[in-house]
């Protein structure tokens, strides 16, 4: 019998494999942080994790609530500020990898994390750009994960540059050669980008998922790789690390909300 795991554990385990040893990786909260730490504790012990808040060389013992959450780091090796991270670290070319969570994405890996709704009449402000546009602009490559987001023909708002109109357009616009999204991992499969056209294609399926299910989520005529990989299940070792380090990520947002609400009710029940 194989291992039993949650979909979040599968995504984190698959994303962690994209990170190599001795790389500099900038990480936000959630799935990305779990993937970075999992990689460090398995095949990439010398990877350096930084957050844009100015924490470099962190070794978190729990998943931070946000990029500035220092209570989970118990020290780090270089304390600087946000502008130092973008200039002296990112702009000097030290960041090999950035992880990004996706709200909306188009066929060339361009992303929206700012607004939902019609231009000029936006209904929802999502988190906003934060540091995403700069990190994806200048990091060596980007590992994208998507659990609640959507594929769209046209973005409601263009926040972060992927491959623009495809081909060489990204590099013609001045971003470093070779940079850009290298992979997108969703709750159903793994996507990559064509070397020449830079259009996204399906590269792999998670266990039990069919191509048709994925096609139903993608509004354009999605190209499919000749040979599709099947995402390997997380190992027992990976699951043990994840469940002790990142139980919040393991259980996913919906279940987490349930657990948190229990804590809140517990707090309120203390009321005098």
């Amino acid at each position, binding site marked *: 019998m194989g291992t039993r795991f949650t979909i979040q554990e599968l995504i984190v385990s698959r994303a962690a494999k994209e990170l190599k040893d001795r790389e500099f990786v900038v990480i936000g909260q959630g799935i990305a942080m779990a993937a970075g730490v999992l990689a460090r504790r398995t095949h990439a012990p010398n990877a350096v994790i930084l*957050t844009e*808040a*100015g924490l470099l060389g962190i070794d978190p013992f729990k998943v931070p*609530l*946000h*990029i*500035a*959450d*220092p*209570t989970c780091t*118990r*020290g780090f090796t270089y*304390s*600087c*500020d*946000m*502008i130092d991270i*973008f200039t002296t670290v*990112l*702009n000097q070319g030290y960041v090999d990898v950035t992880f990004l969570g996706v*709200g909306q994405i188009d066929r060339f890996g361009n992303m929206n994390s*700012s607004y*939902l709704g019609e*231009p000029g009449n*936006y*209904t*929802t*402000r*999502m*988190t*906003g*750009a*934060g*540091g*995403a*546009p*700069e990190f994806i*602009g*200048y990091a060596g490559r980007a590992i994208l994960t998507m659990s*609640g987001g959507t594929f769209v023909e046209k973005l409601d*708002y*263009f*926040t*972060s*540059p992927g491959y*623009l109109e495809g081909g060489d357009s990204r590099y013609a*616009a*001045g*971003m470093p050669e070779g940079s850009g999204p290298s992979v997108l991992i969703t709750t159903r499969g793994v996507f990559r980008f064509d070397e020449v056209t830079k259009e996204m294609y399906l590269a792999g399926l998670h266990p039990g998922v069919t191509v048709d299910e994925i096609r139903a989520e993608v509004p354009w005529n999605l190209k499919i790789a000749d040979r599709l990989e099947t995402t390997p299940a997380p190992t027992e070792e990976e699951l043990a690390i994840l469940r002790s380090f990142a139980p919040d990520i393991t259980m996913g*947002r919906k279940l987490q909300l349930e657990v*948190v*609400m229990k*804590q*809140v009710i*517990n*707090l*309120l029940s*203390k*009321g*005098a």
Partner: protein
Amino acid sequence: MEKYMDADKRTTAAEAIGRFVNDGESFVFANCLYCMPLALTHELIRQGKRNLMAFQQGGIEEIDQLVLSKVIDRLVLAYNFRAGGPRIVSPLDRAIKEGQVAVEEMTNHTLLSMMKAGAMGYPFLPVLPGIKVTDVVKRNGFMGNQRFARLPDPFTGKDTLVVKGFNPDFALIHVQRADRAGNGQLWGAMINSKWAALAAKKVILSCEEIVDTEVIMSSPHLTIVPSHKVCAVVECPWGAHPSEVLGHYDYDFPFRVLFVGSAANPDAAKFWLDEWIHKVKDRDEYIEHYVKRFGRDTLEAFRARPFKSVPADYGSTFSRDWDDQGYSRSMGMTMQEFVAMLDAKGALIDGN
């Protein structure tokens, strides 16, 4: 720029906000996500300040609280934490839709660069140009063309993206410790704090603890806000609750969720604001109320356990030029011999 030279600027949050904040002004949060100046923010709400323009790198609950209380009508923002994802309608969503607040989009790097340019007294600063292609640059909000411009690099001719320097009327910041004059020391995630505080025309500072200036002088590398920028200092334990302050307390997640949950519904939000802002007169009463409501143990459970930094040694070989025997280290003579030498060389002038 105003220069604030008083040796003792200690006051209350109410006095500081009442005296130094005027309706219609612009301000910047010189903390984001971490160490939030929430005691000061709540005072803006309590005093009913209006038409303020806020700069914030990364909002957490304070933006929704200010929006719900109609304190701000313009917001320059790079990021706003969204609990529960885009399916839940937040107070900011409602305010944007109803036109109550105008939002200008920036990125973390470009918003902070506006502050850094302002802090350095420069009209503009170059920024990473990769975002030229995005809507962040292409779509103007209420600031119109007062954010980005493109210039040829004077040395290479290459197209360069620049942001305008900005000096907000005031900054709000919470730090671990400060002295009475307002030398503010912060450690942990530095984020935007230094540049946002230095960009502002004046800084309203709150701290967990007021310490003697000797403490500041023994650790000046931790000072991020110099006293001459600071118009008021407020000693305010738990002043950032429910956000965290390294070395003092962790974030209070259940309490934070309680606000986020309330904020999803306008009536519940009003109830929350009444209970935690309007019906308490200051941060002490807020904490008293918390303890009464949830118990002392619930609050104390968030206290940090120490993890001390190794102190830097600021010792030098000597602390004065004259040694214990009364000899000058630089001249090798006593004071008496020194004055005799001045006399012999004819360097002394007769007075009346």
